[in-house]
């Protein structure tokens, strides 16, 4: 006889601790640090989406920053409305309201738009597997800045679009950085729960079965076409929300806001955190935000490396993870906590 509730109870305890930490963090840190933790939330959302696609469904994407860019531009154009952005001889579409939309409402719209685009990209991607898909998404990531520059009547071209800092709603008396922090983590919390519900249920089982053996999945009545495009759509919607939040937090967007490097580092962080594990995503997001900073100026030693030290450390860490702990940080965590949970579950 074992105590089966110990494992879930511990998980719930850790989650509750995380929520408390996130809520009270703004009281403990400076506004500058707070901005960094807002970016952590944004990366957390993007990595949740990438993990759904690559981790749970086995479809590799090297172009998620391009989907973030779609979300970012959608939000920016909606926030600015017709007046805000420069027109080069072309009238904007009539659906864009003249005076813009309150920033927070642009976030779900950006998610929706990016989700639809991702779903549509998922249709041709159905014919691609493994390396071909990685290639195709890589090409999307490389081409995105050129496309954004070409359609400058909508995107502002290389000059980009500047966004106002949003004020907190309902007369809430907090500064814009604090409001953005809560907004980003609120979205991250909701999307985490959605992702958790998705991957633990029927849909998640279908995704994993396709990843582990497409032929076997088909034989069991799981349609790869339906579930793979669904994974693409949902994953892109996550990227779109992250991109919208990024643009708002950054107060600025141009074709280089979401470079190829970001696409590559997103995949790297997903692997470092641990593929097909939701708990590892937070580690991936922290790594993506803070590793570049600490690689340049290690906190322990009194040295200051060049900016290029960050990618070197990132690449080496990624290669070491592939060699030494294929499960990423989440895999390591699982290996460390399993004996503890097992010991606690055993009835003496």
């Amino acid at each position, binding site marked *: 006889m074992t105590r089966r509730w110990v494992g879930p109870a511990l998980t719930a305890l850790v989650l509750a601790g995380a929520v408390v930490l996130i809520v009270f963090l703004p009281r403990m840190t400076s506004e500058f640090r707070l901005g960094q933790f807002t970016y952590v939330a944004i990366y957390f959302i993007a990595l949740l989406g990438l993990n759904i696609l*690559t981790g749970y469904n*086995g479809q*590799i994407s*090297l172009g998620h920053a391009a989907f973030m860019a779609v979300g970012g531009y959608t939000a920016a154009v909606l926030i600015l409305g017709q007046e805000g952005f420069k027109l080069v001889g072309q009238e904007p579409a009539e659906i864009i309201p003249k005076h813009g939309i309150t920033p927070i409402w642009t976030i779900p719209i950006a998610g929706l738009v990016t989700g639809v685009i991702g779903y549509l990209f998922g249709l*041709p991607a159905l*014919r*691609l597997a*493994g*390396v*071909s898909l*990685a*290639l*195709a998404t*890589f*090409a*999307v990531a*490389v*081409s995105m800045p*050129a*496309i954004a*520059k*070409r359609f400058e009547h909508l995107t502002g071209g290389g000059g980009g679009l500047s966004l106002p800092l949003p004020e907190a709603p309902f007369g809430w008396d907090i500064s814009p950085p604090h409001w953005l922090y809560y907004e980003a983590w609120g979205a991250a919390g909701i999307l985490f729960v959605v992702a958790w519900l998705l991957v633990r249920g029927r849909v998640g089982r279908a995704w994993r079965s396709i990843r582990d053996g497409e*032929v076997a999945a088909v034989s069991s009545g799981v349609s790869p076409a339906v579930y793979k495009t669904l994974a693409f759509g949902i994953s892109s919607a996550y990227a779109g929300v992250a991109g919208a939040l990024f643009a708002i937090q950054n107060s600025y967007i141009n074709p280089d806001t979401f470079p*190829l490097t970001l696409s*590559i*580092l997103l*995949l*790297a962080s997903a*692997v470092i955190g641990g593929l097909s594990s939701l708990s590892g995503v937070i580690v991936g997001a922290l790594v993506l935000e803070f590793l570049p900073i600490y690689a340049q100026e290690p906190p322990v030693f009194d040295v200051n*490396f*060049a*900016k*290029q*030290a*960050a*990618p*070197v*450390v*990132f*690449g*080496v860490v*990624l*290669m070491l993870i*592939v*060699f030494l702990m*294929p499960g990423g940080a989440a895999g390591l965590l699982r290996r460390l906590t399993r004996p503890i949970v097992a010991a606690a579950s055993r009835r003496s």
Partner: protein
Amino acid sequence: MPLAFAWSDFAQQVTSGLAAGAIYASLALALVLIYQTTNVVNFAQGEMATFTTFIAWMFMDRGLPYWPAFALTLLIAFAGGVGVERVLIRPIEHRPEIVIVIMTIGLLIALNGLTGWIWGPEVKAFDSPFPNSSVIVGGVAISVRDIGTFCVCLGVVVLLWLFFRFTTLGLAMRAVAFNPDASRLMGVRVGWMLALGWGFAAVLGAIAGMMAAPTIFLDPDMMIVVLIYAFAAAVLGGIDSPVGAVVGGLLLGVVINLLGAYVNFVGNELRLPTALAVLLLVLVIRPTGLFGRRVVRRV
């Protein structure tokens, strides 16, 4: 946008397209060499090429003449390619495809950073062994540099073909690509053949880098765009076909150049997305490419 269509102008666009295409073909062939043997697309191919091109620049900066620096760089590239296979790829060769892809991405990130760290992020000029003048052939001005680039790239491709076709070592390498298990039973040292394949791929990449650098200038990110063209070329020709990679590279170079020159919508900015569109179209309509083998999936 030319006002009137002129044949001499058209021919000029074709020849400069062929020169660019020869560079894409070299890098595409490097990708195919590795794909054939290791069954993985090496995303770090472009960064390996950039790194070796910077080594060549360093030699020349220290006063070495062009061709000795060129030869020395190729030797270093070969050793580097073999080393990468031995150290990074060998230990994980039996793991799933996605793991090896991620390994090459790790190498891409690290090498890109390392290049910038060692040599700085600023753009550098890179000498060309060929003069920046042109010769008139039948009323068409053709750049000597274009001709030189084309000849060097294609010359190396022909040398490589002769090697694979007429030497025992080449035969052994082809055998490994065709059937590694049977080759091992016949006494071929499969592991070393794979490493040699990576070495040759690195050499091809180094040549592509050194030929591209005089035109696009030397900086740590210079090969990323070339790599995309090479991917598109390799996929167009069939990712497992060396002939396809070369034909695909030349074809892509010419077509992209012509589209950029004559189709107003494409212009200069949309050349890269056009290559992407080619890549996607081929992958969706004919995944095996022009010359590729169809892989039959067994249940």
